């Protein structure tokens, strides 16, 4: 498979009317030094804390518009009750969940067991060997394929668009929010960013720190399509029903 | 009667379509402008701005016509056309056509700021929107239900969107009803109308349907070419809606004792 890279770039340069690679004057934020990227990121994080209440309310509104079933609760116990109720209303038998801290704090295990719902943690063990990791990956997949509900925390939420954001991290499989027909996402106070620009500014920080993940998912409402006769249907490949629990 | 303090000087760019097919639109334009206190002349060397050739890809045929236009309309008078499309040819598209003709391009750039479409000139330059104070004794005051067709070049090349309807709404006895898809092309498009007549016709049929749906007795436009398309379709389909140019509508409504000498309206 010969890579025609040099020839390709030569053609592009010729089309641009030059024969040498040029370094253009930077545009937009490209030229930002690392310190300005860091400063901006800390400012964003600070504002997310300072304006947490207002951002939570804006998120509530935008997420509702985007098709989430949104509930705001004051305490982890209330969140747990609500999630249990959702699961029971759905008559779900199995839940798969990610290892987000916020979910640990909800202490759902007992309630779910009492309700006869099996809950699986879709996570690879910390001490797993490579061979075990392979195996565990396969089993995460299986759990996500068969589960009735996927339960996750989030890394961020976005007030502008009514979205939640999931990043790769230990104990978080992206399949939990994708494969089951229902997704429940728990958003903590302080996690809400005003808009997309703030999210990508934080991604830039990850990038300069060498922490940029292999993916980022912005999820907004249910899976949908209007490919037939402009008619909206939900739950095409991803979850058709989505719940957002705002905690705090 | 409000009148601008000085009498603005205008050269009428009548356009070849109005000259050859719709001279009454040119006459109405002159009468209305004069009624509004404008000094109008008609540079008789004018023929055509070259748009049909330019739009058809025959730029080498269009350039001599552009040269003629720029020579004819040199000077410092306003240039007013009863056509959004022809005005945009000179004001916008000469920039493309004359890209490789530096001398002409320079002239075109000098001319461009003086070029106005009729309604744009009346509202933006003369500052007139309420025409009721100009209504004379011979003005037609009967009730009329009109709908307005927005010319594409007028809207999108010249950015003239509110002026025509503002003028219409200022006419006593005239009720304006907006049609559905008012900003959608009627399907004229110059040679497009004959080269792709099926498509042009399908677009026209929609337009006729939307015109009819308003219940209007009159369809008004600022372009004779749109009226040629819409009016031709209305007539063949036996639809009893009268196509008129905005200048004609204004002319009829405000009524005028003395227009161009010896010229007979219709």
């Amino acid at each position: 498979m010969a890579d025609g890279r040099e020839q390709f770039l030569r053609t592009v340069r010729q089309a641009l009317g030059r024969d040498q690679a040029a370094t253009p004057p930077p545009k937009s934020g490209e030229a930002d030094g690392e310190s300005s990227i860091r400063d901006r990121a800390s400012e964003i994080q600070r504002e997310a804390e300072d304006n947490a209440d207002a951002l939570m309310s804006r998120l509530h509104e935008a997420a509702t518009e985007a098709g989430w079933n949104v509930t705001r609760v004051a305490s982890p116990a209330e969140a747990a009750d609500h999630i249990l109720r959702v699961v029971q209303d759905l008559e779900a038998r199995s839940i798969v969940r990610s290892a987000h801290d916020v979910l640990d704090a909800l202490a759902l295990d007992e309630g779910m067991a009492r309700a006869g719902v099996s809950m699986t943690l879709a996570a690879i063990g910390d001490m797993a060997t490579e061979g075990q990791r392979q195996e565990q990956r396969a089993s995460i997949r299986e759990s996500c394929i068969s589960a009735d509900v996927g339960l996750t925390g989030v890394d961020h939420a976005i007030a502008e668009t009514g979205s939640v954001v999931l990043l790769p991290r230990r104990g978080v499989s992206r399949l939990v929010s994708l494969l089951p027909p229902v997704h429940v996402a728990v958003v903590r106070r302080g996690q809400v960013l005003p808009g997309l620009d703030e999210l990508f500014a934080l991604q830039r920080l990850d990038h300069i720190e060498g922490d940029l993940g292999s993916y980022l998912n912005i999820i907004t409402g249910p899976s949908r399509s209007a490919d037939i006769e402009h008619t909206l249907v939900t739950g095409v490949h991803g979850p058709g029903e989505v719940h957002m629990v705002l905690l705090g | 009667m409000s009148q601008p303090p000085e009498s603005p000087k205008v050269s009428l760019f009548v356009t070849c379509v109005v000259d050859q097919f719709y001279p009454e639109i040119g006459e109405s334009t002159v009468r209305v402008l004069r009624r509004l206190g404008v000094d109008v002349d008609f540079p008789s060397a004018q023929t055509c701005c070259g748009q049909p050739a330019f739009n058809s890809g025959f730029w080498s045929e269009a350039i001599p016509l552009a040269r003629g236009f720029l020579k004819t309309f040199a000077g410092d008078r306003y240039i007013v056309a009863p056509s959004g499309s022809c005005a945009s040819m000179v004001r916008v598209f000469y920039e493309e056509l004359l890209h490789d003709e530096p001398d002409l391009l320079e002239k075109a750039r000098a001319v461009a700021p003086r070029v106005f479409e009729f309604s744009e000139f009346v509202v933006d330059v003369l500052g007139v929107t309420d025409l009721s104070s100009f209504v004379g004794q011979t003005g037609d005051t009967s009730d009329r239900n009109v709908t307005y067709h927005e010319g594409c070049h007028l809207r999108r090349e010249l950015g003239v969107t509110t002026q025509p309807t503002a003028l219409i709404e200022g006419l006593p006895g005239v009720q304006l009803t907006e049609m559905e898809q008012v900003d959608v092309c009627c399907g004229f498009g110059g040679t497009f109308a004959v080269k792709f007549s099926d498509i042009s016709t399908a677009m026209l049929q929609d337009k006729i349907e939307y015109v009819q749906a308003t219940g209007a007795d009159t369809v008004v436009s600022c372009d004779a070419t749109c009226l040629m398309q819409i009016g031709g379709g209305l007539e063949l389909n036996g639809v009893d809606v009268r196509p008129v140019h905005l200048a004609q509508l204004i002319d009829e409504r405000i009524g005028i004792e003395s227009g161009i000498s010896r010229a007979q309206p219709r």
Partner: protein
Amino acid sequence: MRPDTKNFKRGAAKALGNERIQANLLGLYNGFDRARLAAADGTPDWELMREQARAIKAHTIDNLDYYLELAASNVEKAGGTVFFAKDADAAAGYVTDLALARGVKLVIKGKSMVSEEMSLNERLTDAGIEPVETDLGEYIIQLAGETPYHIIAPAIHKSREEVTDLFEAKLNSPRYEEITELAAEARRQLRDKFIRADMGITGANFIVAETGTVALVTNEGNGRMCTSMPRIHVAITGMEKIIPSMDDLGIFLRLLIRSATGQRISSYVTTVTGPRHADDEDGPDEFHLVIVDNGRSRLLADPELRESLYCIRCGACLNACPVYRKVGGHAYGWVYPGPIGAIVTPVMTNLADAKDLPFASSLCGACREACPVKINIPRMLLHLRKEVTEGRKYPTERNRSVLEALAMRLWRLSLSSPAALSIANSVARVLQKPLLRKGRIRWLPPPLSGWTPSRTFPAFVRPFRQRWRG
């Protein structure tokens, strides 16, 4: 996809004669186009964003060589592989060879117009690999053996009854009456493919040069499936899709999504930077980015047409175009229909064959008004028309009609002076006499014969210039 651009008029007539297609196309105006306007209204600084996006695109395209290298090196730093394909054939060859080398049997695909350029499904099938389209619209199109009708809504010309027939014939499914049932059937059918597939192929809406990140916009979730389920992910993209920085992504996502469907954001926006990291819970082992030229460098080299590469493929110009809304997508004969297609198709394929495309427009400018990056499509159509008739830049692709050239010359001579015009007017008034009925013309000879079947034509009269007496 093999271009079939010579038959625009035939394709147009076919769509015009089909009432159902006409009704579906009308839906583009009331659906997408009005939704776009509402979304733009609801976005603060929309006009400013359009200006900014245009400036960013202009800068990136003017320095494309630099940004391509930057993007490629960052994809590689993230552990991905980059292949530069000079044409569709090279791109299809790379993907097919990769699939064969990795023992791939089943490929799941997200919507990718570039893969249509490559006829990738055909190439994979020929190599014994099963490609499955997973976007609902694309899935329908693939079952029907057709090509996309619209870059955002590929099956928009099909009614639910047709989809029901298709599913019954190809999938043996019951005769569903509801669209929700049809979508559920597709979900069931494709779920199994997602689970079994070895390779996922997607397009890329944007490539962020600074980080080597690919951004994907989807609503159904199939894009997420393709990027996270199979062991290999291949993203295929045209070379113009690059933006410099993560900082630019917010603007472009807003413009793209709000212009495409009127949503504030799509259900899913996924970014991918390289393959799965060692400690990720899931994701592909391999990530490949295929960057395709395939004639784009010709657009780049033409200063008048270069801005066509600013296109972010939102489809807004299609929805806004009164011609597209009459003739539909297939008439244009290649991957990209509508106003932007009328620019890029002739240059990326062959201008002489596709000569009708730049002329099939009333130059109404609705496309430019709708375009989120303010591409001046009418201006480029005019330049391409000149190339067809005068062939200055593409001399071998000149394709003008001798008769039309003659008519144009005569027309121009008749306007060369007021005296000539007066003569022409007198001659015309004599010649038109037999054609006049109640002062109107009801029949015209070629080349104007297209006018009169649906419209009467006004008569030449004593011209304004003769009535004028100062």
